[in-house]
Every structure is written in C-alpha cells, then in structure tokens.
C-alpha cells in the first residue's frame, strides 16, 4: 500500500517519471491508460496517484472522478495544459493538487511529501471542534454535519481543520496554501476550488454558506 502510480500515456514521460521517482525513494509504477490505472488502483492501491489529463479512452478528468468515487487517495494532476478552465475542472473533479509540465523532480517530490503529511493528525490534537451543527473530530478524522458523517478527502479535511483551529479568524489564500499544501508560493485556485468542494459537503446551501464564509479580498474563515 505504498508507492506512486503514474497514469500517463506518453511512454517516455511515464518511464522517466518512474525512474526519477524511484530515485527519490518512492515505489513508482506506471499505467498507460486510465483503464489500466483504475484497475491497478483497485487491485493494489498506491499511496498517491499522478494523472495526466489527455489520455486515450477515459480521459484524465473522468479518471479522477472514478478514483475519487472509490476512496480518498491523494491525486496530483501533472499536465501540460495550464489554462484556468482545465485546472479548475480537474480540481473540481477531485484532484488535490495541479502541476504543470515540465515539473522538476524535486518539486514533484516535495508535493508528494506534503500530501503524505496531510494524512496525519494535527500537531496539537483536540478531541473535537464544534461549529454549531458542524462537528470536527481531528483525532478520529471524522466530520459530522447535523449528526450525519461526511466523507472528506485528506486535503479537504486538512483544509477544514486548518480553518477550525482558528475559529472566526480570516486566513488568506496564501496562508492556507502554505499550511495545507505547503506551497511557498502557490495558485489561489487550489484553495478556491477546494473551498467550493468542501462547502458542497458541509453546507446546507453551498451558494449561501453559513460556516465557511468568504471574506472579500482577504480570504476565508470558519464560523458557527
């Protein structure tokens, strides 16, 4: 249950990434199609999945959706496409991070480490954080809304905990990028799309959020 699965149709890119990731100490393996990748993930799940967006057959977006349906495995998109539309669509489909090719191996490795850390408990765990009908149990990794448990991905959970640790305080997008994604400088869209996904899961009406509110020009905050 360790290792990285590289879903990439370009043989040379796949091979070079697998080689380079193995050098970085990961057990990496490749899949040339989304179908193959999904099958491998079902039979022998990898810890993290790298996905290209342009794949023959099932494309990257659909591949992300299907991976997401099964579990909360961290998904990183590695694509040559860098327009906003693709980035937002991939993140909305469920990706945790988005990297534009060419990615330096050091950077990729740093992203993967950050993702792995995200799965762990908070540094100073508290039994539970209550925001009205929203209850977060960081130790158990559980979130309930009106008593009903909600399934969050690791990134969503980490983002929620980060906001919950500072109740009522505004955290800027860059602060959240540093704390959740461990980016020194990152893309605001990562935060925005994840906040959107989080709202759909924890808010009664995600277009009129009560708990996770936007503070215009500043960032986000979590409130009762």
């Amino acid at each position: 249950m360790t290792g990285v699965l590289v879903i990439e149709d370009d043989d040379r890119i796949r091979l070079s990434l697998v080689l380079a990731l193995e050098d970085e100490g990961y057990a990496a393996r490749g899949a040339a199609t989304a179908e193959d990748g999904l099958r491998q993930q079902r039979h022998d799940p990898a810890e993290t999945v790298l996905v290209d967006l342009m794949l023959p057959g099932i494309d990257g977006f659909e591949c992300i959706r299907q991976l997401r349906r099964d579990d909360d495995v961290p998904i990183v998109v590695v694509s040559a496409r860098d327009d906003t539309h693709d980035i937002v669509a991939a993140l909305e489909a469920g990706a945790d991070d988005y990297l534009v090719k060419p990615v330096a191996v050091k950077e990729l490795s740093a992203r993967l480490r950050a993702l792995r850390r995200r799965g762990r408990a908070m540094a100073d765990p508290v039994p539970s954080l209550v925001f009205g009908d929203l209850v977060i149990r960081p130790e158990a990794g559980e979130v309930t809304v009106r008593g009903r448990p909600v399934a969050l991905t690791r990134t969503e959970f980490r983002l929620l905990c980060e906001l919950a640790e500072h109740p009522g305080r505004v955290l800027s997008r860059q602060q959240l990028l540093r704390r959740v994604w461990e980016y020194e400088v990152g893309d605001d869209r990562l935060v925005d799309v994840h906040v959107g996904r989080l709202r759909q899961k924890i808010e009664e009406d995600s277009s009129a959020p009560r708990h996770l509110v936007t503070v215009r020009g500043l960032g986000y905050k979590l409130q009762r």
Partner: protein
Amino acid sequence: MRPVGLRGRVIAGFAAGALALSASMALVSYQLIRGSLLAERERTAVRAAYFNATVVNAGLIGDEPDMVEILRSLDTGSDRRPVLRRAGIWYARSADSGVTASIPDPLLRMAEAGTPGKQRIRADGQPAVVVAVPLSDSTVFYQIDSLQELERTFQTLAAVLTLVAAMTTGAGAALGWYATGYVLRPLRSVASAAQEITAGDLSARLDPASEPDLVQLTTSFNHMVDQLARRMERDRRFAADVSHELRSPLQTLAAAASVLGRRRERLDDRTAMAADLVTGEVARFQALVDDLLELARSDQPADRRPVRVSELARRVCRTRGISDQIIDGEDGTWLVDEHRIEQLLANLVDNALRYGGGPTAIRLGCQEGAHYIEVDDEGPGVSPEDKEVIFDRFVRGRTARARGDVDGTGLGLALVAEHASAHGGRATVHDRPGGGARFRIELPGCGR
C-alpha cells in the same frame, strides 16, 4: 485647427438650408405683401382724391370762393392733406407750406398741363403719395396721403418675417442635430460593440434586424468579429498546442536529467560534464518555453482585482532569499492583474540579481495619478544605446553579452514591458543616482 465633425457639418448644412429657404420665402412674401398693400393704399388715395376734387370743384363755382374754407369742408383724416393751387398760388387748410414744397416739379407741370397723376414722395421726411387732379386750366387739386401707418406695418412685417426666418434656421439646426443623432445611433451601438470586443467579449454582435438600412454595415461588422474571434481562437489553440507539444518532451528531459544528476558521482568526468550541460539546458529551455507562452498570452486584457502589491513584492523577495527590508512604499491595494504584476516584479528582481548585483531598493507608490514600481540595482547600469532596446524581445544588454550570459531567456524585460502595457502603463529604465540602473514601471489608475 480641429476639423468640424460630421454632426457639426450636418447641423451647419441644415441650418444654412433652412436659412436660405426661410429668407427667400420671407423676402418674396414681404415684396408681395408690400406691393399689394401699397397698390391698395394708392387706389384708395386716388378714389378719395377724385371725390374730394369733385367737392372742391363744386365749391369753386362762385366768383370769390373761399379756398381755405372749401378745403376745410373736406372730410379728411389726419393722414390726408388736401391742397389747392390756383393761378400759381397755393391754398391749404393750415399753414403747411412744407407739404407743397415736397410735390415734385414734373408732377406739377404735368398737372398744370391738365393731366392727372400720382406719385410716391417723401413729405416732412415721411413716405406719402400725392395725387394731382386738374380742375380747370389754372386750378389743380392735390391730395397728399401719408403712408406712415403703412410703413410701420411694413416694418412690423419685416421684423416678424426676420424672426420667423431666424426661428426656422434654429429649427433647421435642431433638426440636423436630431437627425444626425438618430442616424449616428446605430453607429454608437457599433462603437460600443467594438469596445466590448476590445475588452475581450468576443460574443458581442450587432442585430442586423434592428436597422434595415444598415444591414450591410452590421453584417460586415459581425463577419469581421467572427473572423477575428476565429483567428484569436486559432492563435490561442496554437499556443496551447505548442505548449503541450513542447512541454511533454521537456518533462521527459527534466525527469531524465534528474536521474542523471543523482548519479553524477558515479559518472566519469566527461560524462558528468555532459550531464551538467543537459541539466542546465533543460532548465533554460523550460524557462524559455514558459516565457514564450507568457508572451503569447500577454495580449489578453489584464484581469484586474484589488491586489496588495507590497505583499507580492515581499513574496518575490522571500522566494529569492532577499531581505524584504529593501521594499519601501505604501501598503494599500492596487487594482491590477495579480499574476502579471507578480511576474513583472519577479522579472525585474531576477534581472537585478543577474546583471546588477541584486536589487538595492524596491519602491512602490503613487505619483501624478499613476502607480509606480521602481527597482534599483548597483550594477554597471544600462548604456544609452541599450536603453532603447532593452525591453525588446531576445535583446540582451551589453553587460549580459560581456558576461557570456546564457541563463536568461532574453524575454524577461520584454514581458515586463508587455505586462505594463496590458495595464495601460509603461516601462522605462534610468540611471540610478550613484551608479546602477533604475527600472521604473508606471501603471495608471491610482485614484484619489
């Protein structure tokens, strides 16, 4: 002199047309009315003169008739003065000899000769008509009718007609103003559509049904926009395709170079050197592709939002390991494209790092309605001939060439200039007092 606009010319044309028309109408009306009124007045005068002459003639039957008394018995208004000339002597109702003096000699002679006549004259400086009716060989009855009343009517008429002509001219100008406004209205919708398109909304079109007479204009305009949109879409897709095609092999190279780098110690010297070259070139190639794509996208409009530029500058410094103490300036928000301004700052700082020994100051502020960004360095500065071209693409300054620079893409400052102009601003380079270069960016739109 500024040429007169279409609207001005149409208004002037309408006004001139209205003036010509109304003036000639007024003139003709005036002449006709004046002619007919004068003729009517003269006819009345002649009729009255003959009637009065008959009365006078009847009174002259006696041997020693009292001329003055006879004249006084005539029923005349204040505007009518009868006089009688008998055997070379003038008789009048009262002492108004001035009147007789104004009767012209030819008329006098004609009447003495027994021919009746009438003539328009000026008596006491007033217009009048004199009618001469010979009664006998030595007697002639004259009647002088003042036309003063009629003259006043003519003056009033002239004033009214002039006023009407002036009003018609004004109405003509107003009509011209309205008509041009009406005709230019579809053009304004063309202009606003063009503005929308310039602002990036390529879906803006004109409705050909709204103005049947301008169908040709709207159709060709829409056709032009279609073509433009298609071309832009093609360019955008081309840039995206190029980006994809270049980035994919670069990814392989980057990963493979990393594998080589990790095994550098195990390689012999020559192979290690070759591996270093590959690694270095991959990095440069990557920077070049990124800059080229950025440049290809730079003609798109700036995506303006409130941005704390001082925060961007701090971020740029932090990621490059430079103290943010060198940043000096306001902490407020600017309405700019965050991504572009961050890249602009990053490129200026990188430029200073590469050629100027690192930035010594970054100043942000507002001057004469424009935000400014200044980045100083203590390098050798920029030579006058380089100042002209340093913002051009693939131009490396003298310093860069002298150092055999291969790290830069030659596009960094071109991108700075592009990002500045996307905000309607400009980029310039100056000599820093005390040596070094000072790059200055001005972005209009700092309020207050």
